[in-house]
């Protein structure tokens, strides 16, 4: 089919389908287009994926083979102790990935263009979350793959596996929304990177992913006992290896606590992020 337009504007090339489909169909279509857009950019800037590819490999190998030789956990091999913990604290790193991607988009003007289009605005922010979730899921799979190769042996039933996958997805989803919210509030991706690391790094080390909280000094132990990430770490370990932790209510009921923290994060961040997105404005 050849185009029949003679002028600068494309005319006679079929009509846009937008008017003919319902609102939900439009929303899904637009979200899909925007997710594909962000996935397409991945091979062009592979280094942007380093936080979900290189970092899991480095963390796993570093702790297993460098620090692990000096860490002894009673009743568990260090592989079985470490890998579920890494997955548990790893969900929080989504804050950095999602935050940096969001602040980059918002400072580049490309989001302005999307917002000036007749597309559902919810699709723009949904695509942001979905795209980041896919990246984080890749990171989780790398943790699991490297862990299995290094000798991690999870012991769960099919129901346990489903529970494991469900909780990981929920955690990733919750922290991604926090990242999107922070990404919209912070004005540069460098600042977002800094804030993300300052927030996530200490909490992940205090969460008992690498060494037991019970062996820490009083102050870090107190923080670790109530660090939200500790619940994620303890929940993963409970599901994968059947271990039980002590020290605080949330550690004794890690699955309920992990669900609770995720719901709180989602309940706070989603409405705030949506509100912020709707009224993102310029400030001279």
């Amino acid at each position: 089919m050849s185009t029949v337009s003679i002028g600068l504007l494309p005319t006679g090339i079929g009509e846009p389908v937008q008017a003919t489909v319902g609102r939900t169909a439009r929303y899904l279509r637009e979200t899909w287009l925007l997710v594909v857009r962000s996935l397409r950019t991945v091979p062009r800037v592979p280094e942007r994926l380093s936080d979900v590819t290189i970092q899991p490999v480095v963390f796993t190998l570093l702790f297993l083979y460098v620090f692990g030789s000096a860490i002894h956990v009673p009743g568990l091999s260090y592989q079985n102790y470490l890998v579920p913990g890494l997955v548990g604290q790893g969900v929080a790193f989504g804050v950095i990935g999602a935050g940096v991607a969001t602040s980059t988009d918002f400072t580049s003007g490309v989001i302005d263009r999307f917002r000036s289009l007749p597309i559902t605005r919810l699709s723009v922010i949904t695509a942001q979350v979905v795209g980041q979730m896919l990246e984080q899921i890749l990171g989780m799979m790398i943790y699991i793959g490297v862990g299995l190769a290094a000798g991690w042996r999870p012991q769960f039933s099919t129901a346990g596996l489903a529970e494991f996958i469900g909780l990981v997805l929920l955690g990733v989803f919750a922290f991604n929304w926090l990242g999107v919210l922070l990404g919209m509030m912070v004005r540069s991706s460098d600042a977002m990177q800094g804030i993300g690391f300052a927030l996530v790094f200490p909490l992940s080390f205090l969460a008992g992913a690498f060494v037991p909280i019970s062996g820490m000094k009083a102050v870090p132990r107190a923080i670790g006992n109530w660090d939200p990430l500790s619940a994620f770490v303890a929940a993963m370990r409970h599901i994968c290896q059947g271990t039980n932790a002590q020290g605080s209510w949330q550690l004794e009921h890690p699955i309920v606590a992990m669900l609770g923290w995720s719901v709180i994060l989602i309940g706070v961040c989603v409405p705030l992020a949506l509100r912020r997105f709707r009224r993102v404005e310029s400030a001279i």
Partner: protein
Amino acid sequence: MPEPAVLAEALSKQFGDVVAVDAIDLNIPAASVMALLGPNGAGKTTIVRMLATLCEPTSGTASVCGFDIVREADAVRNAISLTGQFAALEANLTAQENLILMARLRGYRRRAAAQVAEHLIDQLDIAEFKDKLVKSISGGQRRRVDLAASLVVKPKLLVLDEPTTGLDPRSRQAVWSAIRELVTEGVTVLLTTQYLEEADELADQVVVMDHGRAVASGTPPELRAQIGDHRVDVVVADPADVDRVVEALGSRFLLTLDRARRTVSVPAPNEAVELALVAQELKQAVIPVDEISLRRPTLDDAFLALTGEPSTTVVEARDDFAGVPS
């Protein structure tokens, strides 16, 4: 009378204590070009953002093609295309991929979107770099892609925020001819610019802005009548000679002085005539001169003529994004 493309009444926007746009009235007839002319910080971009539904006015009303920019924002977005000041393209996609994405988001099916992209690549001379990532093409090329991205559907109103700032003369001409072509195809254009020449070349109506206010408005000939035409600039080598130039020319011309630049400026409605007269006078007075030149009036001259004072250039915060300052 056909409905105006843009109708704004007392449109205002305040950010905290700063009044960015102060009671602006606009009436842009369909298929015409309106230029908002002013320095950085004059409020041009804020007007554009309000009309493009990216931020809401603090007070006043505006409609685009009859749709209210606040209550009927969806309909407004359907009628407009915005090309922002900062090329709003995905830097890590190619020019072609960006255009296809925009066409898809505008509702074209895959095949049609590819054809639309192909057509625009052809029309706007993008073919040469269509497979390059946008981050690796030049500023002028990026503007062309950006403009193309705004044209995947025929907009009723095309909003161009400083479409030629930072472009070389050839790229500027290319953008200008594209704009003229679009107007003949029935598109209404609202553009902002810091260049008097650009407003003069393209616009049917010009609104001159400073500090969020309209300081003058009219057709280019009307404004030219107020601003005056060309000027002859005399630059002397020795600062002390400025006074001698004033002495030699002061009785015949209304002079403007810029001592810091050792420049005396003479209005030249008849262009070469005044140029010759000035040169003759200086020759007779035997004043050594660095440079004599005939030039078009600049935005600064316009402000001087229209407001009696020079434009105040405020550094405008990058206001493509968003966060409210804490």
